[in-house]
C-alpha cells in the first residue's frame, strides 16, 4: 500500500473512532434502591430515607409512647401534618412524608390516620357509597378515628460557599404535638453535612 493511502486510512480510522465514541446513546444501569448515589450534592432519596428512618426510630424509642400506652392501654393515633421546606432547594417533602409514614406504620407501635388531602377523597367515596353501595357493604359517615398527635416539621439548610465549593448543612426538625392540649411530647432533630466541590474548568 502506498504511504499516502496508509495515511488516509489511519485518518479515516481515527475519525471513525471519534464519531463512534460520540454515538454512545443512553446507558441504563439498575441500582439497589438502598444504594447511596450522590450526583449534584442536592437533597436526594438517600437523605430522605436515612433521615426519616433515624428520626422515627428515635421517636418510637422515647418516653411519650410508653406513657401513652400505659395510660390509655392502646397505641396512639398519629397524623402527619405539614413538613415545611425552608431550605434553599426545591425538596419534594411528599416523598419525605411518605417515608415517615411508612417507617411509623411498619413499626406497629403507632396507628395512623389519613392526612387532610387523603381524607377528602375518602369522604367523597363514602358519600358515593351512600348512594350506590348495598346496605351490607356501605360504610357509614362519622366513624373516623380522630388523631391523638400531629407530627409537624421543617427542613432547613445553611449554605457556606466559596466559589465552586459548598458546604451544605441540612437540619430536619420534627415535632410531635398532642392534639388535645398542644403539648409537645417529642422533638427530634437530624443533621446532614455535605461538602460539594465543583470545578472552575471544564473541557
Amino acid at each position: 500500500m502506498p504511504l499516502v493511502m496508509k495515511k488516509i486510512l489511519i485518518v479515516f480510522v481515527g475519525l471513525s473512532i471519534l464519531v463512534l465514541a460520540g454515538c454512545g446513546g443512553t446507558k441504563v444501569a439498575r441500582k439497589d434502591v438502598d444504594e447511596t448515589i450522590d450526583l449534584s450534592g442536592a437533597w436526594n432519596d438517600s437523605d430522605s430515607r436515612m433521615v426519616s428512618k433515624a428520626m422515627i426510630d428515635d421517636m418510637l424509642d422515647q418516653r411519650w409512647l410508653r406513657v401513652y400506652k400505659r395510660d390509655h392501654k392502646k397505641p396512639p393515633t398519629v397524623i402527619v401534618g405539614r413538613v415545611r421546606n425552608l431550605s434553599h432547594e426545591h425538596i419534594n417533602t411528599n416523598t419525605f412524608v411518605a417515608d415517615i409514614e411508612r417507617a411509623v406504620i411498619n413499626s406497629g407501635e403507632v396507628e395512623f390516620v389519613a392526612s387532610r388531602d387523603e381524607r377528602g377523597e375518602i369522604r367523597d367515596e363514602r358519600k358515593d357509597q351512600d348512594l350506590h353501595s348495598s346496605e351490607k357493604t356501605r360504610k357509614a359517615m362519622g366513624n373516623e378515628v380522630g388523631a391523638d398527635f400531629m407530627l409537624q416539621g421543617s427542613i432547613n439548610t445553611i449554605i457556606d460557599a466559596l466559589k465552586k465549593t459548598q458546604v451544605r448543612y441540612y437540619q430536619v426538625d420534627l415535632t410531635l404535638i398532642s392534639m388535645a392540649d398542644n403539648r409537645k411530647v417529642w422533638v427530634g432533630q437530624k443533621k446532614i453535612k455535605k461538602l460539594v466541590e465543583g470545578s472552575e474548568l471544564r473541557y
Partner: protein
Amino acid sequence: MLSIFNSVVNRRLCFALLCSISSGCATYSESFKPLEKEIIAQQPDKALKILEKSQPSGNDRLLYFLDKAMFLRMMGKFDESNQSLEEAKQYIKKFSPTSITEETAAFIVNDSTRAFIGAPFEQVLVHFYAALNYLSLGDPDAARVEAQQIDTKLTNLSQYDKDPILIADPFTRYMTGIIYEGLGEWSNALIAYRTAYAAYKAHQKLYSLSIPTYLKYDLIRLADYEGLRDERDKYIKEFNIKKWTKESDLKKQGEVVFVMGNGLAPIKRQHTVAMAAINNQMMRVSLPYYQKRKNGFYSARLSVANQEAISTEVKDINNIAEKTLAHYLPTITARALARAVAKYKTADKVGDHNALAGFALMVTNYATEVADTRSWLTLPGDIHLARLPLAPGKYDINLELRGAGNQILHTYQYKDVQVKRGAKSYLTYHWVSPFALRSQ
C-alpha cells in the same frame, strides 16, 4: 501577497464580497425579529410556536429555556414556565466553569462560540421569575426557596467580582423581603429590606434611580415591629415620613402585590469599530452595544372601588444591562483585538505559502468576526411595583397603564382576586407597547 489586490477595482470587488459574506452571518439578536412581532401583538402562544420551530441549540440553548419560560408565563402557564427555568438553572450550573475548548474557539473564531450562561443580572432574574411563578401558583414556600437561592447566587457572585452592578441587586433583594414578610418571617424580611436599601443606594451612584417609596415604608414598619426604635427613627428622619401604618394594623388586612414588566429589555447590536486593510489583508473588530427599546407606559394604576395604588419603577433593566456590558467591554475588546491580530497573522502566514488558501482564510476570518449579541431578550425593559392593602374579600381589580402625559394606553381587569387577612396576593403582568420596536 495576492495579485488579486493589485488593482483598485479588484480591491473594491473584494470588499463588496466580504460585506455580502459577513451580512450572511446574522447575529443572534437579528434572529429575534419574528418573535418580537408576536410579543407586541400579545400573542405569546404564537411566539412560543415560532421559538419551538427554530430552537436555539448548542451554545445558545439557555436562551431557548429563558424565552420559553417567559412566553409560558405570559400565557399563565406558571408551572410549565418553572420547568423551563429549572432547566435554565441546570444549564447555567453545568456551563459556568470556564471551558478550555470554547475559550480557544473564541480566540480563533468569535465570542459566540462560548456557551451563553447569561450576565449576572440575568442569572439572578431566573430565580426572580421562578419566585413570581410560584407566588402566582399560590406556593409561597417554593418562592421562599427561590429567595434563598437568590441570596446564595448573589453571595457567590460577590466572590468573583465586587462591582455593585453585578452583585447588588436592589429589587430582587426587595422582592425576597416581600416573600419573607408574606410568610411572617419578620426578621428575615427586615434584613432583606435593609440589604435592598443598601443596594439601591449603591446603584444610585451608577445611574439615575430613585429608592421606591414602598421600601421606605417597609423599613420603618418592620424596624418598629422588631422593636428597633433607633433604627425606625433613623428611617423616619431620613425619609421624612410622618404617617405610616403599623404592622399590627396591616396584618388585619390583606395586600395585593403587583409586579409589572414594562416593554422589552434592550437588544444587543454589533458595530464594527475597526476595519483596516494591512498588507492587502482585510480585517475588522466587531463589538456589541445595547440599543434601548421604547418602553411604553409611565405608570400603572391599580384600582378597586375607591382605593388605588400607583406603581413605581423598581428595576431599570435598561440601565443595568448597559452598565453590565460596560463592565465587561474592556475584556471583550481586548479579546477581539487579540483575535484580530491572531487571525491576521495566520492568514498572512498561510498566504505566503499558498495565495488562494490565504485569501480563503482571510475571507473566513472576516466573515466570522461578529460580536456576541446574545442576551435574554424577552425580559422587560423595566419593572414596576404597586402594593395595595385591602380588606379581606374577593375583588375585581382594574389595571390602567398610563403614558407620560397621563393618557390611558392599556387597560386590563383581574377577576375574582382573593384577598386573605394577613396574607399577600400576587398579580403580575407584562405589557409591550406597539412602539417597542422603535429604538429610543
